């Protein structure tokens, strides 16, 4: 027994080492690409300015491609430096603090939206699994729901939220409406992959459950839901980034303050006084999306690493 434990410990140590090596390699690749993209950005600017300055006739720049002046494309160094500068005259608080604060606000909205979307999506998938009749009836509406522009429904949801949620045991605040908007983008991929995942259970395993006189609920919990996990995680990755997009768009079109959406709107309206601020904030929103995606990927790795289907690649 001791040798077996030793082997197990050695294996898990190796696995941990492999995981760390994998993470380190990914970080290095990320940095390489970051540097490459920065160079491409700066290179295009320098190149564009050179031909601009020499008055050669290159109608592409400034028409099909962005102008290369500092207003359109602030220098990379300015954007990075902007994170440390205070965006308001009356305060020393640097921009990065504003972004982190807004990002955590948006993250909360997106997080609740994501959870709600997962519950709703899985609920829809289970109902559709139970009744092909409902599946056929509901599917077109689910698809239709995704073609409605988010910008159009966001104000409606915010108005509904503040007018008709009085019956709830807690006070309805406006960020909750934004969560609902985020849910709109998350439940759909979860429902679609969820039903596929539930149906992916091995027919032999289904028969085995029948031989145990398993109830429908037991088969769902012990076989179909676990079988759906790899499929559902694929949906969670789409849903995680979708929730962030939904939250930002929801804040902007619903006019909800406190998050990245409002920050982006503010800096966009005062763009001429400081272009790098907007760039920096947009970069912050992108990082938030990456964080959400990474969290799901880590959860997936932890859940699936023991299974055959488990893989490190996102």
């Amino acid at each position, binding site marked *: *027994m001791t040798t*077996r434990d030793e082997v197990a410990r050695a294996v898990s140590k190796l696995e941990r080492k492999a995981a760390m090596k994998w993470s380190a390699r990914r970080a290095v690749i990320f940095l390489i690409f970051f540097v490459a993209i920065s160079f491409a950005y700066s290179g295009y600017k320098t190149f564009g300015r050179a031909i601009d300055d020499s008055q050669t006739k290159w109608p592409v720049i400034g028409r099909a491609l962005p102008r290369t002046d500092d207003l359109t494309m602030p220098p990379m160094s300015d954007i990075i430096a902007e994170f440390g500068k205070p965006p308001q005259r009356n305060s020393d608080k640097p921009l990065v603090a504003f972004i982190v604060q807004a990002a955590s606000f948006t993250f909360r909205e997106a997080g609740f939206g994501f959870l709600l979307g997962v519950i709703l999506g899985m609920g829809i998938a289970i109902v559709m699994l139970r009744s092909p009749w409902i599946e056929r009836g509901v599917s077109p509406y689910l698809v239709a729901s995704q073609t409605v522009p988010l910008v159009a429904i966001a104000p409606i949801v915010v108005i509904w939220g503040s007018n008709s949620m009085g019956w709830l045991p807690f006070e309805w605040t406006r960020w909750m409406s934004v969560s609902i908007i985020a849910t709109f983008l998350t439940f759909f991929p979860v429902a679609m992959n969820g039903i596929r995942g539930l149906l992916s259970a*091995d027919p*032999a*395993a289904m*028969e*085995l*459950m*029948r*031989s*145990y*006189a*398993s109830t429908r609920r*037991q088969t769902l919990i*012990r*076989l179909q839901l*676990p079988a759906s*996990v790899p499929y559902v995680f694929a949906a969670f990755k789409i849903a995680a980034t979708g929730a962030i997009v939904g939250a930002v768009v929801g804040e902007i079109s619903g006019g909800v303050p406190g998050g990245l959406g409002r920050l982006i709107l503010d800096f966009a309206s005062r763009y001429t006084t400081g272009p790098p601020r907007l760039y920096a904030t947009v970069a912050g929103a992108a990082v938030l999306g990456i964080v959400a995606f990474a969290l799901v990927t880590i959860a997936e790795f932890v859940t699936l690493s*023991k*299974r*055959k*289907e488990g893989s490190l690649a996102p």
Partner: protein
Amino acid sequence: MTATVQPAVQISGVSKIFNLGKPNEVRAVEGINLAISEGSFVSLIGPSGCGKSTLLRLVAALTPASDGEIFVNGKPAEQARLDRDYGMAFQTSGLFGWRTVIQNVELPLHLMGWSKAERRERAAEMLELVKLGDFADYYPRELSGGMQQRVSIARALSFRPSLLLMDEPFGALDEMTREHMQTEVLDIWNKTGKTIVFVTHSIPEAVFLSQRVIVMSARPGRLAADITVDIGDRTFETREAPRFFDTITQVREALRNKEPSA
């Protein structure tokens, strides 16, 4: 047990027709009469498509019979399924990849509402029976095909059903592992005294394992012969004994006679 002579499995006039009345209608089995006595080891053998697996699935009440009656332990097959009178092992081990070996063995007990402690104890006992006590916390993918099959047998036996239904359980294993597994199954049969119905397409396997070999013919599946195997205790030498080969020949001839030969 009382002394009433009630067969473990009683099949009377059973037929199964798939896609009845449609152009692709298939008569899988027809007019089957068979009684399997308690504690016996019976093999069903026949060419592909002879309906041997279908017959097993009819006994398991995984598919309803089109005609006739099946009783398991004196009850209609469907009732026996609901009462969990049988355990089943398939060709694919059908282990759940997200459960450890011991959790897989616990699955039926879990469904039956056993407490965690009882489940653990019984599952550990079953893993000892199939000689996998050291592999309780492994995941199925870490085990060889033969070991996975042993886990699936342990799982089928975990709730101590009186009847074990096996559908080509060693079909995907190599010859060496297969012979080893046959010895293991006989060992389990001797220790537990279960009734075992074993579907196979290997003649030596059927002869080596069973007391009775039921030979089936194809399209529609009918019983072609019922051969009693009398080759004494199974040992390593059995596989090389003349009596073993005589019985194999007997089964082979029964199979050939009933095949629609060219």
